């Protein structure tokens, strides 16, 4: 309990870095005319999206609009059938080596955490650095502890995921992804499976991460997060990108009537 309360302290969140927008910087993700089908169902249609280095993107839209599928294509958890996806200069193809290279650079946080239940929190964090990046165990553990410190749960390091609350598990999942030193972080509805009291502790960590300059793509329904953190909001419906704009513009002056309808639905309450 005290943990959560202390996290509400705004001093812990602002660390003085100005939010810069990196417009015109190198592209981290370049999606061009990408299409995907599940069987005969056309899930993603002519997706074009560029994410620059250091940019924070929030992807929103109704359920079934293809948001999750789109970001899962970025690290090849899903395969696209047409168009191209280039991540950090590497084009995603059938080539397993390229897929591995991209996955090494891209961290992902899932809706249901997907921690490994048979390993402790610390083991979860060091597994991939040790086996994939071939780091010495001691070095990996030191970095993992530093990152657990950053997500404010170093005292849970030796527990198993099953002993933690949902919010704590999700923060471990974030730390685990960060242990690989990723250049890009993907968040797939990271707060959707959490109790209301725990959403804030996860969002606080994500805000902190955004402020550190990490390139982030977040699928989320947390509009407050989008307003304060995002450089750009991408709105999707029926497998298409309907509209993308900075949050100030997106929330106050949406161009498409579909966006307007969506915003009126979710902001009503």
């Amino acid at each position, binding site marked *: 309990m005290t943990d959560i309360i202390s996290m509400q302290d705004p001093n812990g969140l602002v660390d003085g870095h100005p939010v810069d927008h990196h417009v015109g910087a190198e592209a981290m993700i370049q999606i061009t005319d990408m299409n995907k089908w599940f069987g005969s169902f056309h899930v993603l249609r002519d997706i074009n999206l560029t994410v620059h280095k250091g940019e924070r993107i929030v992807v929103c839209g109704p359920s079934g609009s293809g948001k999750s599928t789109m970001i899962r294509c970025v690290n090849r958890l899903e395969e696209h059938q047409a168009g191209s996806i280039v991540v950090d200069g590497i084009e995603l193809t059938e080539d397993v080596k390229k897929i*591995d290279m991209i*996955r090494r650079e891209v961290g992902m946080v899932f809706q249901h955490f*997907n921690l490994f239940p048979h390993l402790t929190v610390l083991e979860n964090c060091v597994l991939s650095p040790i*086996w994939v990046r071939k780091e010495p165990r001691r070095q990996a553990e030191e970095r993992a502890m530093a990152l657990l410190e950053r997500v404010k749960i170093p005292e849970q390091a030796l527990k198993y995921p099953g002993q933690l609350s949902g919010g704590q598990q999700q923060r471990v999942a974030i730390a685990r992804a960060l242990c690989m030193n990723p250049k890009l972080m993907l968040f797939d509805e990271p707060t959707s499976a959490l109790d209301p009291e725990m959403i804030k502790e996860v969002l606080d960590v994500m805000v902190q991460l955004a402020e550190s300059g990490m390139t982030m793509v977040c699928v989320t329904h947390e509009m407050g997060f989008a307003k304060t953190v995002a450089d750009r909001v991408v709105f999707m419906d029926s497998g298409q990108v309907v509209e993308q704009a900075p949050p100030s513009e997106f929330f106050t002056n949406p161009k498409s009537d579909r966006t307007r309808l969506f915003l009126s639905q979710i902001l009503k309450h």
Partner: protein
Amino acid sequence: MAEMTPTGGAPADSFRPIPPRPPPSSAVGPVRWVRENLVSSPLNVLLTAIGLYLIWLIVPPLIDWALVSADFFGSSSDDCTSDGACWVFVGARFQFFIYGFYPDPERWRVNIMFLMLAAFLVPQFLPGTPAVVRKWLGIFGLTLYPLITAVLLLGGVFGLPAVETGKWGGLMLTLVLSYVGIVAALPIGILLALGRRSHMPIIRTICVMFIELWRGVPLISVLFMASVMLPLFLPEGVNFDKLLRALIGIVMFQSAYMAEVIRGGLQGIPKGQYEAAAALGLGYWRATGLIILPQALKMVIPGIVNTFIALFKDTTLVLIIGLFDILGAVQASIVDPAWGRVAVEGYVFAAFCFWVFCFGMSQYSQGLERKLHTGHKR
């Protein structure tokens, strides 16, 4: 009590949780157990009475037969004078039950096998054994031990006289068959289970065919094929050991069963685990070895041990191809006219030996399950 209840009237924000209190005495301890399990209803009272009567009817005569009026010491049937069990028979034939026809002066080799087995198995049961010791003993038991034992028992090298496998028998043979069966069937079963879930059609088809073929035939016919039919198909002059043929048959058969048990575990792993492993850059073999298998195997420990226990008992079927395991040795002995009616004693002894090993496996698996439980229910 009264100041704990947040009744109306008081201003807000003074929520205090009620401290936990112990349950009433009727809900804990032996009293509760007797109430709930023995006398909870008239029917249960009746069943309890019948149960007690049956215990009184069966247990005292059994103890009397097996212990009180039994004969323990002596060397021939003449020493069995009382009307209880004739354990003299078991004592006199003990060597045969354990070693079969393994030549007398070479039996120390079998004893070393038993001792090594005990040396690396017993520490696994003791709670105080450090994890590192456990691990290395386990690795020894799965790799070096079968090799050392094979050299030791077969002989023919290092100045050890060769002992042909036809002379192996008794408990020793039972252990050899089941140990090799267990140690070989598990890894082959794992590979078959993974192969059956492979995305590569050829591998999948081969694994499915293998599993369905071996699961579709009774073990007894596998053994019969191995011992009688196989030599007919082999070219002239090529002939390999009957025990080896039986072993291969048992391993193939049991690995097919093992594969299906393990596949059950693999299917219980949520898709998210595969995705998380992939997203962290782990390839197929690392994800399988570090993430998927540890969880899947843990989930199916009861099924795996069940298969092991079945395997252990199924080894007695080698009797039909002329190998004398412990049950075979007992059966061969009880027909000896020099001993009167000792069939019950012989079978009880054989059953007891099987029970000790099977119960041991069962206990070990339960201990393992407790140890691996990490508070995660999913």
